[in-house]
């Protein structure tokens, strides 16, 4: 086992929209103990979680953070600044959000971030171990696209982050969810994984995704 691998199968998800609940389903199928929050009290999302992610537990965001060291952030992009700077201190925070101007409104900081929006998220949560991942495949692929390790036609998901142990942990999660994991390099390479980025919204094999994300491809 490399340093990032772990037997821990606890996962927290902040955001109970279509992305959060879909990732929750995949994680439960992979044997994770999943706790998920929406905005506000747990009761507000209880039915959504019961129907869309049976087996997951609806909770407050504080409880989600308490539950796991690995947290998926899947709130609408314009809402992440509602969360306190210190909320995810020391946690591996998977930024699964995408900036959509037509949903999030015009946000100059996000729209022009040279290293992509996850760098802005890292600045907002300075002591979180931010990894950009789970954002670049069409969300329903988490249901329809997952395959066992080694299965032919397996889709790849990339992870970008500066904390290499955190990236390794996220890559292990990706594999357990049913996808090949590709290390995309440091956090500021995440631009390629965003809307308008070179690999966004299309399903690739690990080899194809690695090639597209290689420095040679990005400078071409």
């Amino acid at each position, binding site marked *: 086992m490399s340093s990032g691998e772990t037997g821990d199968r606890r996962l927290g998800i902040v955001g109970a929209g*279509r992305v959060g609940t879909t990732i929750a389903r995949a994680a439960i199928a992979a044997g994770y103990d999943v706790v998920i929050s929406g905005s506000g009290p747990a009761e507000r999302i209880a039915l*959504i979680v019961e129907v869309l992610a049976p087996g997951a537990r609806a909770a407050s965001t504080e409880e989600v953070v308490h539950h796991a060291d690995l947290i998926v952030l899947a709130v609408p992009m*314009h809402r992440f600044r509602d969360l306190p700077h210190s909320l995810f201190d020391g946690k591996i925070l998977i930024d699964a959000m995408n900036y*959509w101007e037509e*949903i999030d*409104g015009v946000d100059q900081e996000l729209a022009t971030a040279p290293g992509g929006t996850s760098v802005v998220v890292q600045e907002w949560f300075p002591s979180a171990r931010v990894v950009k991942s789970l954002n670049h495949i069409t969300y329903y692929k988490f249901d329809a696209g997952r395959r066992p390790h080694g299965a032919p036609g397996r889709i790849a998901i990339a992870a970008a982050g500066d904390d290499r142990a955190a990236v390794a942990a996220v890559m292990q999660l990706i594999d357990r969810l049913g996808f090949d994991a590709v290390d995309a390099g440091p956090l500021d390479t995440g631009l390629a994984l965003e809307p308008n980025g070179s690999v966004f919204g299309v399903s690739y094999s690990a080899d194809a995704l690695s090639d597209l994300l290689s420095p040679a491809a990005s400078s071409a």
Partner: protein
Amino acid sequence: MSAPELELGLDTFGYVNVDEAGQPVPADAVIRNYVEEAVLADSVGIDSFNIGEHYRPDFMDSAAHVVLATIAGRTKRIRLGTAVTVLSTQDPVRVYTNFATLDALSNGRAQLVVGRGSLTESFPLFGFDLADYEELFEEKLDLFTRLLRDQPVTWSGKFRSPLVNQYVTPALPAGHLPTWVGVGGSPQSVVRAARYGLPLMLAVIGGPPGRFAPLVELYKRALDAYGHPRLPIGMHSHGYVARTDQEAVDIQWPYWKETFEKAALERGWARPTMARFQAERADGSLYIGSPETVATKIAAMMRLLGLSRFDLAYATGRVPHQQRLATIELYGREVIPRVRELLADHPVPPIPSSHVSAGVTAQPHV
């Protein structure tokens, strides 16, 4: 519970298109042309004609109620509605007066789909802040349902002046105006439709329709939780019908590609490819092909999800008027009767809960 009546309709966004020689059609002629398309739809037995809402140079659908009123005067039977009314940026009182008047003019044929909209150009245009996206829709839906159900209305909210013991005319002779809530996949929006006791319209532009099975289950469970009866569920998707599969692909592909190339540039989506187009035809949400192909696919999807309504957003992009008329003719005369026949042979079954709780999104067998 008796099955709700099937509704097979058409949706248009008033695409600014080209003529058969490839020359641009002036925007005013585009609007007159799709009035003719609606008149044809009525004559070939299509159940409803529904118009979108955009404020962009490539879509001529910024005042659906005006166009629908013209169509009302030239048709007898077809229901007249919206593919989506972006209620968030309209005054619900005005929406009520427009559509209650349309209902009077058309002798009870008005209906609408209300939603938050997926393109949000109406927010700055009408002076609303996109940051209030959720709150605006919630408040306006609240007022609109009150106007439909509980007149006189005493109401106050954040975004408009209060109403005190207010009647708004004209009254609805049938006592109601069919109003569906359009959703794009947000679980919270599905629960909201159930909370208001309004039927649900799923707007699906890609991916396997079976992935909506969990949301359908959520909607039913939420209706139960709020104490409402089971209500109809529908879906809107894009498609094109021609004599043969190949002809349909040949006609629709270049315009579909052009439309999604533009969307890719504007919205950051993946670029369209023939492989994706064909995959969407086969297992996804494009209803493109011969009448038999399209009817089989619609019936399978409606049965899979337990739907009673399907709206075909016919002829995506700049497809010329003559070819739009041709697809309407085939949809009305061949596709719809065949869908009804297929669904009569194997009626829409309720979705067993176990399907959904396993997180399985079954594929339609098409």
